[in-house]
């Protein structure tokens, strides 16, 4: 059967089971949009800016585990999308992006709305394709989904020139793909796993450090079982929150720059460290030279060989699919005669409890004058029973969300960890709400971040997305102000947010509900009221303490044990 490239594109997406296509039309994708109009299998979601299309597809992917799919036009459509694509790339999110391109005969002639899309996106995609012949289109789309979702996932872009979407070709969707140059590893090396299990069982001061890979690899349950059976402490990275239940007593909190005292010290002082789906990045371990501890042995499990021994040398590397490796680890644990040393473990836990006793996340809960941002997150946790999907933007509010909302399940915490993209929160929340129309979705944001994709309030209206926007409004680029206070002699260079809009009126003008909350006494009531409005987008503008800082904090370039616990440490 002869179909046009545009029709083939839509058929392929339907074959892949794509529910939502987040996008924005333009000249180079008009034939594809015409086909979108003519079919009803794939639902197109019209955003208000291409960056938001990618973030929405991203939020959909992170929350559901299925690849996100977006479509943009050539030129400015693509350049607007780049921030979103880089965001997904740094957090290894499976995604397929369809971009329009000028007709093949015009490529290279500086045609209207021409950019070298493959060139511009090359460093921030897992792979990209330019389809020059309509006969290659279906197989290329098939490959795109395969590459995006297998191995270490990531965004894959398919650039389709306008004439290719118009030309006809015989259509059949390939049932499988094989690429000789791409064979992601699946199984971990059994011998290495055995070595790792022995090492873990010999530990006197063990520590388990789990990252976003555990969530992406759907290995949370197995990891939880391993941690529980061993009785060892476990920490999660910012990207890994929810991989191990936060309310469990073996959970010592998030680690890293704004991690807990107990997590960072246990990380620094353990004698055997199991790193799983994590990559020792600079926001997690700080300076690798300070992180180095003689005598500490490290096991590192990751699907990507290049993550291993990149920043930290490890003793037992295991490359493989995390769920398979964790499963094999459990089997070997059960088969082993050795057991964890109960005395050593008790002494280690005693030490950890002592660290935990510092209560590093305490804050002024009794303040009745001024809203503490941490208190808002704690209340949000209570009001939602810890059961909401939480997206965030980037800044202090992101760290407070990570510290005070206790994630017991994977895929509930959605934030831009790698790129740190302000503007991610609201559009990604839209993607989550599409994936889970009946669940609570809240976006924790700041008055600066929210303005980077504020136009999406319009999309929320069009599709009736009942997202709750929790704006921790401190009238500052808070995280910037914090660094300026701590490291730049209180010179608050350009970090004050002047001329803020009236967010309540702004929300109302988009057809939503807005609340402004100024007193600690009103926090809980406002949250309850917002969530009671089950079919409305609600903008909650909390006027929070302008001077609050995020603690603990490991200053840039320092080691984990050089944490500042609070302003009294300064």
């Amino acid at each position, binding site marked *: 059967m002869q179909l046009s490239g545009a029709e083939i594109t839509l058929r392929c997406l339907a074959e892949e089971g794509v529910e939502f296509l987040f996008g924005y039309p333009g000249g180079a994708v008009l034939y594809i949009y015409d086909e979108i109009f003519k079919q009803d299998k794939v639902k197109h979601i019209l955003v208000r800016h291409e960056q938001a299309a990618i973030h929405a597809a991203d939020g959909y992917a992170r929350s559901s585990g299925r690849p996100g799919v977006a479509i943009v036009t050539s030129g400015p459509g693509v350049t607007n999308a780049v921030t979103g694509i880089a965001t997904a790339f740094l957090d290894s999110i499976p995604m397929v992006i369809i971009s329009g391109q000028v007709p093949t005969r015009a490529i290279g002639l500086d045609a209207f709305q021409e950019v070298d899309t493959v060139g511009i996106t090359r460093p921030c995609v897992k792979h990209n394709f*330019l389809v020059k012949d309509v006969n290659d289109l279906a197989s290329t789309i098939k490959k795109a989904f395969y590459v995006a979702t297998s191995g270490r996932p990531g965004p894959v872009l398919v650039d389709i020139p306008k004439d290719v979407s118009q030309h006809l070709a015989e259509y059949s969707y390939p049932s499988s793909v094989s690429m000789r*140059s791409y064979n992601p590893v699946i199984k971990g090396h059994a011998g290495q796993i055995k070595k790792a299990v022995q090492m873990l069982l010999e530990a006197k001061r063990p520590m388990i450090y789990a990252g976003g890979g555990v969530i992406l690899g759907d290995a949370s349950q197995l990891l939880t079982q391993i941690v529980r059976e061993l009785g060892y402490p476990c920490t999660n990275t910012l990207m890994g929150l929810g991989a191990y239940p936060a309310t469990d007593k073996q959970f010592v909190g998030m680690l890293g720059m704004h991690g807990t005292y107990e997590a960072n010290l246990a990380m620094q002082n353990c004698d055997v460290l199991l790193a799983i789906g994590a990559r020792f990045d600079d926001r997690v371990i700080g300076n690798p030279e300070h992180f180095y501890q003689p005598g500490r042995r490290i096991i590192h499990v990751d699907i990507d060989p*290049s993550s291993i021994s990149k920043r930290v040398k490890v003793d037992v590397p295991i490359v493989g699919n995390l769920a398979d490796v964790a499963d094999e680890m459990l089997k070997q644990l059960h088969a082993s005669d050795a057991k964890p040393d109960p005395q050593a473990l008790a002494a280690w836990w005693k030490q950890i409890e002592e660290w935990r006793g510092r209560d590093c996340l305490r804050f002024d809960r009794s303040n009745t004058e001024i809203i503490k941002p941490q208190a808002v997150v704690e209340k949000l946790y209570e009001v939602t029973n810890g059961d909401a999907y939480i997206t965030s933007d980037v800044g202090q509010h992101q760290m407070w969300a990570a510290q005070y909302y206790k994630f017991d399940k994977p895929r509930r915490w959605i934030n831009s960890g790698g790129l740190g993209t302000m503007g991610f929160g609201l559009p990604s929340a839209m993607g989550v709400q599409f994936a889970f129309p009946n669940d609570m979705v809240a976006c924790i944001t700041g008055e600066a971040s929210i303005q980077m994709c504020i136009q999406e309030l319009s999309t929320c209206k069009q599709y009736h997305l009942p997202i709750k926007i929790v704006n921790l409004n401190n009238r500052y680029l808070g995280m910037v102000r914090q660094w300026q206070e701590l490291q730049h002699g209180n010179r608050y260079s350009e970090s004050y947010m002047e001329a803020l809009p009236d967010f309540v009126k702004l929300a109302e003008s988009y057809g939503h509900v807005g609340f402004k909350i100024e007193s600690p006494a009103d926090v809980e009531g406002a949250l309850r009221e917002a969530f009671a409005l089950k079919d409305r987008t609600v903008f909650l503008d909390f006027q929070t303490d302008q001077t609050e800082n995020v603690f603990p904090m490991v200053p840039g370039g320092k080691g984990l044990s050089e944490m500042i616990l609070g302003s009294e440490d300064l």
Partner: protein
Amino acid sequence: MRHILSLLLENEAGALSRVAGLFSARGYNIESLTVAPTEDPTLSRMTIVTSGSEDVIEQITKQLNKLIEVVKVFDLNEGRHIERELMLVKIRAEGKDREEIKRTADIFRGRVIDVTDRIYTIELTGTRDKLDAFLEAIDSAHILETVRTGASGIGRGEWILRV
């Protein structure tokens, strides 16, 4: 340390720029890079000469392997190997220098491939060191132009890099 990496990659538009982009994006050194199709027209063979600590070379190899179009990566330093580079060099050769330059070229097994009454163009193959040594042996004032291909490498004996 200097390493010679041999790659097989899909002979597709864009594969070269992915490799080159990787090196510049991650700040790895490239001393030279050569690429051409192989006996199998769907494959290209690339030789990259780079340098770095063992850790850096390990990362380079892993990162190259992650590129979708790269089929195989092999560090020739891991075994015995042969390295050759081709150089074309234009040398001013007048009067009494003519004989001297010709003799030097002979010693290095170079061939004169073009002649005018003032110039010799010499073709020379060998390792980087040999080509360097030849250039040092000629008075630099006589060297007018050099073109070097960068090294190509292959393993010794029966070992073969294939898909």
